[in-house]
């Protein structure tokens, strides 16, 4: 992975070299796989190629895709975050509780985002200042955040929200739900930012070699903290959008979501060792997993079997990548 890779001048390269470079990128492989699944499924069942199916799929994958943006930045910098599913639940119940309690909608949304930011900051500080391993740190906040949302709601969903709050979750623009537009916009911004923004580029250095990054004068701790805050903020936003769509805050929402996000990001080319990954790749990973699940549902494969298949796909994707890499070196 490199800053300059993507901008390499095409003129000086042969078509073959260019083709090889494109094929070597995970995004390209995934795009082809996604296309194949779409083609095969459109032949297999007439229901697949319908706007209704795509819309349902897009709404379903929106929270995963939004959180995957932050998770990718974290993975690139050599960290990761298990608390995202719980933060989503806490902020979805949080925003619902604040609105139900009479606060203006805008203020409630800001409040919920703040809750997310605080948890993200806590994650970041625990990891960088106290030196606690990210797995342990975010496992802890994952449990705390889930616990708080259950305590606040006593385990029940918070509903009876004013219709105005449901506007974003229930409206279509140009035939697509607003949530989907927001997701696409965030993915585009996230991808460009991680590729080109100076501040976020530093994540690749940190994930590539933390000691060398420190000695190069890169503010390692602050970049990592920002990555945790961004991830938690995105998880909070996903929670708010979910509450708006469902018109209720659910304390049990987003269970095991962190693992889905991690799986999608890894399928999309991010590495748990850090230094690798792109937002676009992770987004394709999210779509890929969602498509496989959708295809299996269409083909009436039981939900239990879907889990087995998803697990095998994750391992296969990473194993194939490792084999190809070994071949190349």
């Amino acid at each position, binding site marked *: 992975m490199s*800053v300059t890779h993507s901008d390499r001048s095409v003129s000086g390269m042969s078509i073959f070299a260019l083709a090889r470079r494109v094929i070597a990128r995970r995004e390209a492989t995934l795009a082809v796989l996604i296309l194949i699944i779409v083609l095969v499924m459109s032949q297999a069942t007439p229901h697949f190629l319908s706007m209704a199916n795509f819309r349902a799929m897009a709404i379903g994958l929106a929270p995963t895709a939004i959180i995957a943006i932050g998770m990718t930045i974290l993975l690139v910098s050599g960290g990761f975050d298990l608390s995202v599913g719980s933060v989503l639940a806490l902020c979805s119940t949080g925003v619902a509780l604040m609105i139900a309690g009479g606060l203006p909608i805008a203020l409630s949304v800001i409040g919920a985002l703040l809750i997310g930011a605080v948890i993200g900051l806590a994650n970041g500080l625990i990891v960088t200042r106290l030196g606690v391993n990210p797995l342990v740190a975010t496992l802890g906040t994952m449990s705390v955040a889930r616990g708080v949302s259950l305590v606040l709601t006593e385990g029940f969903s918070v509903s009876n929200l004013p219709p105005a709050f449901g506007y974003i979750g229930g409206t279509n623009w140009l035939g697509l739900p607003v949530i989907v537009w927001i997701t696409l916009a965030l993915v585009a911004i996230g991808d460009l930012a991680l590729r080109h923004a100076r501040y976020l580029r530093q994540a690749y250095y940190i994930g590539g070699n933390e000691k060398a990054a420190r000695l190069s*004068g890169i503010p390692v701790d602050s970049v990592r903290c920002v990555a945790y805050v961004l991830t938690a903020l995105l998880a909070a936003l996903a929670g708010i959008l979910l509450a708006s769509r469902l018109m209720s805050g659910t304390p049990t929402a987003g269970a095991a979501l962190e693992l889905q996000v991690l799986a999608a990001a890894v399928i999309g080319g991010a590495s748990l060792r850090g230094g*690798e990954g792109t937002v676009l790749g992770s987004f394709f990973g999210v779509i890929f997993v969602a498509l496989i699940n959708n295809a299996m549902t269409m083909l009436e494969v039981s939900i239990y079997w879907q889990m087995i298949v998803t697990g095998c796909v994750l391992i296969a994707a990473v194993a194939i990548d490792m084999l190809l890499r070994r071949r190349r070196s």
Partner: protein
Amino acid sequence: MVPLLEIQEVSKAFAGTQALSRVSFTLAAGEVHALVGENGAGKSTLMNIVAGVLQPDEGSIRMNGETVTIESPRRAQALGIGIVFQELSLVESLSVAENIFVDRVPTRAGLVDWRRLEERTRAILAPFGVTVDPWALVADLPVSQRQLVEIAKALSLDVRVLILDEPTSALPPDEVEALFAVIRQLRAQGIGIIYISHHLAEIFAIANRVTVLRDGRVVSTTSISDCDMDGVIRAMVGRDVGAMSARSRSGTGAALLEARGLSRTDTFESVDLTLYAGEIVGLAGLMGAHRSELGRALGGALRPSSGEIRVGGQPVRLDNVQTALRRGIAYLTDERKSDGLFLEMSIADNIIAPALHRFSRFGLVDSHAAVVAAQERMDRLRIKASDAHQIVGRLSGGNQQKVMLAKMLESDPRLLVIDEPSKGVDVGTKQEIHSLLSELADAGAALLIISSDLPELLALCDRILVMREGQIVGEINASAATEEAVLAMAAGSTPVTANERPHERHA
């Protein structure tokens, strides 16, 4: 007499480049055969073939007259070929004993026989003449002792052929002699040793024969008594290289950096030093003198517990590398691979790392400008690579070192603290690095060079500060200094005389 190891006409190519062409090499029992050559000459490829890591395309290998196929490192072990790699391969969280015996720990009824393990470890370490506790964790050992553990590990396999790849690169001068004593002992036992080193002086001190590789071919194999250092260098680089000549200095300017009473608990104490514009100051000392730590403190990578640092007369606090860079101080680590470079990233990405802000507009990185700047640096420093997009991990050691220097220069420093500027690089590259450092000083920068290579310090520096146990114990004018004088001061074997006492010059 049949040679112990006989490599005949071995060739090996990688993706179009011929790494070795028809290389022949013999090793007799009880011989130290040095293998020298510039970075990329094919030494590592040849040794990897002997160690079973790589397979030759052509040619054959015989041991004791019998043709053998070394298809794996395991097979090499079985044949009695041991290799001590440049990069240490020890498990830091395990004890010395467990590291030496790995999967061959003695057992009783399937359980590890700890007492026998300790006995065997002591038996193997005994000839080294140093006391290393078999139960000490490798993580707690100084680098020099780790090197011994690494050699002991190879010996525990009952080796007949021992390959030492840059065994002294991590050793302070005083421990090199201890290593040589071990090597002589092994030689007396009839073990054949292939000795790879960039330090030609070592080769003349320990080897019986020397083979020079250049561009994958054997240039010469001669008995050590039939050649001299200039001849070997000429054979290595294929041209005449001037001897390391002392730097001619152009006078010094204002004090750029002053340290007063700089201390850090258990590392260095009451360090006073001043660096003037336009001069190169050496920092000599043995292992345990804590020179690197002092260097890190001046570069903002390690916080001192007390004392004062002034830059350009202003007192400053160097809390981290960023603040040091902002003051114009750049620090170059001696740990190229672990702390210095982003091995999986491109040359351009590495070079711009400390100066990302200079290649950014409105917070976005201008990749084109970065590549152009990197390419310029590559041309200036003669970094051999296809282009700035090449991944740094695939470059040779010498080119990696140059990338690290290029990266440091990108922050446009006025003060440079450089730890082992020519660690693991060949003669030609070393000279290029030296002239680059000289140019920097001539352009008005102040340089502090930490090096365990005394001839390097003597040739490169204007004056040399000597550290011992965390304190600066003396200063020697480089033009008047000898290796013996510096070593004696570093080891504390001579009293510090009046003219060697630390003194401040007045600019």
